[in-house]
């Protein structure tokens, strides 16, 4: 039985797709058969970040409409044979997604995959609602600024009330906080919310802090999930996050500037 993870935020541009790509690649590299689905119908991006945009034949909506089989639409990653991408349709809009259709696809994927990552679109409309509806775990991606934090809070409310688990009164979705674009220097100057500030507002389990990093943009533009860039701080942050999610005890880093020495030590060991 697969574990379904939704990567969500409410607000746009906080790093959902970057995170989806990195986490999916991280889990797949650990040997788990992983699928990553782009729910952003009409504004498809995941294929670019994953670097498979030139291999898209069929998409998510085709499968929902029965115009293609799941196997025809799934794109196997060239770098990791455990990773598959289900791209969104660029020519449709989010109304093409139906609860039944999405449910059917996730059920079918669950038979063979270990992890299914749902890359949610921004907003709280149909696409976002369907991305999180069937989830077991939620990665809430938040930037250290008030608008993003409030939108995340709103999303958390929806997660706890409008998901399948909530409607069936099952065990609640496990919610994790991923704080991205974090810059300790700017936090110190008071230009950014600190980890503690965000934790205070959201009171959520912190899965990891991803530092603001040039490597993210570089990786995105070249279609390589940033987690594959082992020398970058963001790549290492995502590796930590995957390990923590899988139950390993990994100390948090990238929170304080002066812990850079520690970073070096950890990396060396």
């Amino acid at each position, binding site marked *: 039985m697969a574990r379904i993870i939704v990567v969500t935020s409410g607000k746009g541009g906080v790093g959902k797709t970057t995170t989806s790509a990195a986490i999916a690649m991280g889990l797949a590299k650990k040997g788990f058969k992983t699928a990553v689905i782009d729910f952003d119908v009409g504004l498809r991006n995941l294929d670019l970040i994953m670097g498979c945009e030139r291999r898209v034949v069929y998409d998510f909506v085709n499968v929902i409409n029965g115009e293609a089989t799941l196997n025809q639409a799934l794109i196997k990653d060239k770098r990791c044979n455990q990773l598959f991408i289900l791209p969104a349709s660029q020519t449709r809009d989010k109304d093409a997604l139906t609860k039944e259709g999405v449910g059917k696809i996730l059920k079918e994927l669950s038979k063979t995959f270990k992890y299914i990552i749902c890359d949610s679109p921004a907003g*709280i409309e149909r696409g976002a609602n369907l991305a999180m509806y069937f989830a077991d775990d939620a990665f809430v991606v938040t930037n250290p600024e008030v608008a993003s934090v*409030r939108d995340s*809070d*709103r999303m*958390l*409310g*929806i997660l*706890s*009330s*409008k998901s399948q688990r*909530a409607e069936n*009164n099952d065990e*609640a979705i496990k919610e994790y906080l991923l704080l991205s674009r974090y810059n300790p220097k700017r936090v110190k100057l008071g230009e950014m919310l600190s980890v503690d500030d965000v934790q*205070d*507002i959201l*009171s959520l389990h912190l899965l990891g802090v991803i530092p603001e990093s040039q490597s993210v943009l570089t990786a995105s533009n070249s279609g390589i999930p940033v987690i594959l860039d082992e020398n970058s701080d963001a790549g290492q942050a995502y590796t930590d996050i995957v390990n923590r999610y899988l139950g390993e005890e990994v100390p948090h880093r990238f929170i304080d500037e002066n812990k850079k020495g520690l970073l070096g030590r950890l990396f060396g060991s």
Partner: protein
Amino acid sequence: MSSDPQKTSANFPAFEFKSGVITVPVLNVLSTDINVISHQLREKINQAPEFFKNSSLLIDLQALDDQELNLAALVDTIRNAEMVPIGIRGATAEQKHAAKDLMLPVMSAQRSTPAAPVEPAAKTITAPVVNDESASDKATTSIVGNTVIRQPVRSGQRIYVKGDLTIIAQVSAGAEIMAEGSIHVYGTLRGRALAGVQGDEGAGIFCSDLQAELVSIAGNYRISEDIDDAVRHAPVHIYLDKQALLINKI
């Protein structure tokens, strides 16, 4: 609370009018045959004589569907059974007239059909209503009593309870919690909290860290901007005193 007796002794009020609610037994009359009623009434009373002795009683004639009934005889029967009729309802014009002669008050009939009773069904504490609301702005209704919520109330969620509301978590900015009774928040209150929404001026709001966007009791409200810095980020009790909303540190 008490007014100065020296000032008011001249026109000290000798009484005051208040509306009150009491529960009285209602005798739903289903037959017009006084003999049958009398017989069955006695049987009933014999089962618990002390319980019925001198008990006041409201006579409800609605079930008779306007059939004729000798009201005077019925009242006699009841009095003979040592019970005290205090009024009738659901009566026909003629029966009302008879009641007047018998010095019995006529109450307005409860026009609820048996199917309609609006009693909030359960007396159980149902699962927190957090789950109900998020995107829709329909308020959720819980039952009278105390409702306990253990998860954070997130931005955009609305909670409405008939009785008291206790939240053992934070209330986020952009959330709205409403109670017909009092509100207790064991956590940071950042959203809007409205207590006594049906006009209960005795309701209060208690929270362990006040950062609310708005607090209101029985319609008397204060927005964040008007909350004194001295009581911000502090555990407080918010209550109403003579229409003035007071915020005191606990």
